[in-house]
């Protein structure tokens, strides 16, 4: 546990040292703020005290940002050889993978914390359904975790950051849109199965305010599977 925290801390520190964190935070808040408050179907146009617009935007921005955050995590360590330092320290591969995951998730949590003023502002504007807002945040966190773990897996199979970025974006695209689109062409069990595999259907149901154990299990198993595969791919390099 201690090693996990040390690893995560270093990784998070390197996000902030290399400006990645600031750029990501600024872009995320800029995008989501602009579309939530100023443009399109913003809060004022909807005339409803909720954060549905924000969750819709955040869903897409995080989808693009996360691969950019995860792409260097293991790929860069392999390229620069620093993975050798980690491998020869008394820590397990599992700790390395989870440390990276934790660092990236922390950065996303920081970004989401920065959007709390949105929530407070909307709350001041009118009666807010607190449950639905909380569920929206929970959905974002679960979805981010899933994409982070997919991104870490993509980063573990190559030592080229661009390849890692594209692989994780492509894999994300599957879960994000393609599976949903494909499922519409099927009926019956096949359609349900494919739709169950899609992140968007689970995210939608959580962000609507329904916390179903089915959705939670889906996200947790997706996260666990990807992290497990990353660990396997790390172990294979020895």
């Amino acid at each position, binding site marked *: 546990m201690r090693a996990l925290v*040390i*690893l995560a801390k*270093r990784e998070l520190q390197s996000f902030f040292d290399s400006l990645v964190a600031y750029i990501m935070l600024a872009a995320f808040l800029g995008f989501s703020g602009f579309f939530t408050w100023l443009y399109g179907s913003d809060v004022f146009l909807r005339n409803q005290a909720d954060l549905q617009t924000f969750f819709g935007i955040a869903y897409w921005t995080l989808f693009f940002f996360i691969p950019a955050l995860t792409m260097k995590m293991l790929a860069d360590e392999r390229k620069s*050889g*620093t993975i050798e*330092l*980690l491998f020869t320290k*008394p820590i397990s591969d599992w700790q390395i993978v989870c440390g990276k995951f934790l660092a990236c998730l922390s950065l996303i949590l920081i970004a989401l914390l920065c959007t709390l003023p949105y929530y407070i502002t909307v709350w001041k504007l009118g009666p807010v359904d607190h449950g639905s807002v909380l569920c929206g945040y929970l959905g974002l966190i679960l979805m981010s975790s899933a994409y982070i773990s997919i991104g870490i897996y993509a980063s573990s199979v190559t030592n080229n950051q661009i390849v890692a970025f594209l692989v994780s974006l492509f894999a994300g695209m599957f879960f994000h849109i393609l599976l949903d689109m494909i499922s519409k062409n099927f009926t019956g069990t096949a359609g349900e199965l494919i739709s169950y595999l899609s992140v968007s259907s689970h995210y939608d149901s959580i962000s609507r305010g329904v916390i179903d154990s089915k959705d939670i299990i889906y996200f947790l198993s997706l996260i666990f599977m990807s992290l497990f595969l990353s660990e396997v791919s790390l172990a294979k390099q*020895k």
Partner: protein
Amino acid sequence: MDINVTGLTKLYGAQKALDNVSFHVKTGEIVGFLGPNGAGKTTAMKIITCYLSATSGEVKVGDYTVRNNSQEVKRMIGYLPEHNPLYLDMPVIDYLEFSALLQGVEKSKVQLRIREMVKKCGLNVEKHKKIGELSKGFRQRVGLAQAMIHDPQVLILDEPTTGLDPNQIVEIRRLIRELGKEKTVILSTHILPEVEATCDRILIISKGKIVADGTSDTLRKKSQGNEMLKLKIEDGNKMDILRALQQLETVALADVIAGSENVFEVQSKGSLSSRRNVFKLCVDNKWVLTEAVPYETKLEDIFRDLTIN
């Protein structure tokens, strides 16, 4: 902490990087790995440090095997990898703290250890800079400091003095010797005088096999064979002296070194020495022996003999 390597073999696909290598390193011994590029030095080190797994064979560090107790083994080893990979975006101090914590140094002792390492490795001036801003020599010092931060029982250093200036090389060699008194040290290098200056024992590896094992003196003796002397004898006729030398009973071959005045090359028989006989011969004939130089086989020659075939 003893290191025991038995029957170590490593295959990269069809290529044999290590071929049934066995050796033993005792506590307090400094062992130097020598070998041409691609001989398997680094592979052997990587297996001992648990970075690579062996195809077959076993490595035991103390009571623990690399295969079954890798965590315990890693805790006892300080390792400086070949290209000295470092997190370039981290300041020196932060990086040392990170390494210390990962190695399980107690929190209360971390700052003390860092201070000690900064002093030992001469990093004081640069300690707040980012590693990426340092010169190669200073990066090497950071790598060494990182390897020693948890006061390990075993130190494995892959080419520890590359990129250092001559003063620093002397300093690091002294440091290694000092550490080697109570710790087990394995280092690899291309610089032959370095092995002689720092190591108690030399292992020469070629094509994945150990071709020589011993102190530099024993290696020399082994490869030298018969005694060779260069003699300068004055106050006598060149041919007379040569004839007399050839008649000495311990001498196998004697010859005049071409293009020189009264300088001879004498090879002795078997393990005999002709030095006393030559001296006596000169005294009897009233010649003056002004020079007698034994030919030393250089480590370079031994190395070349053993690794080129």
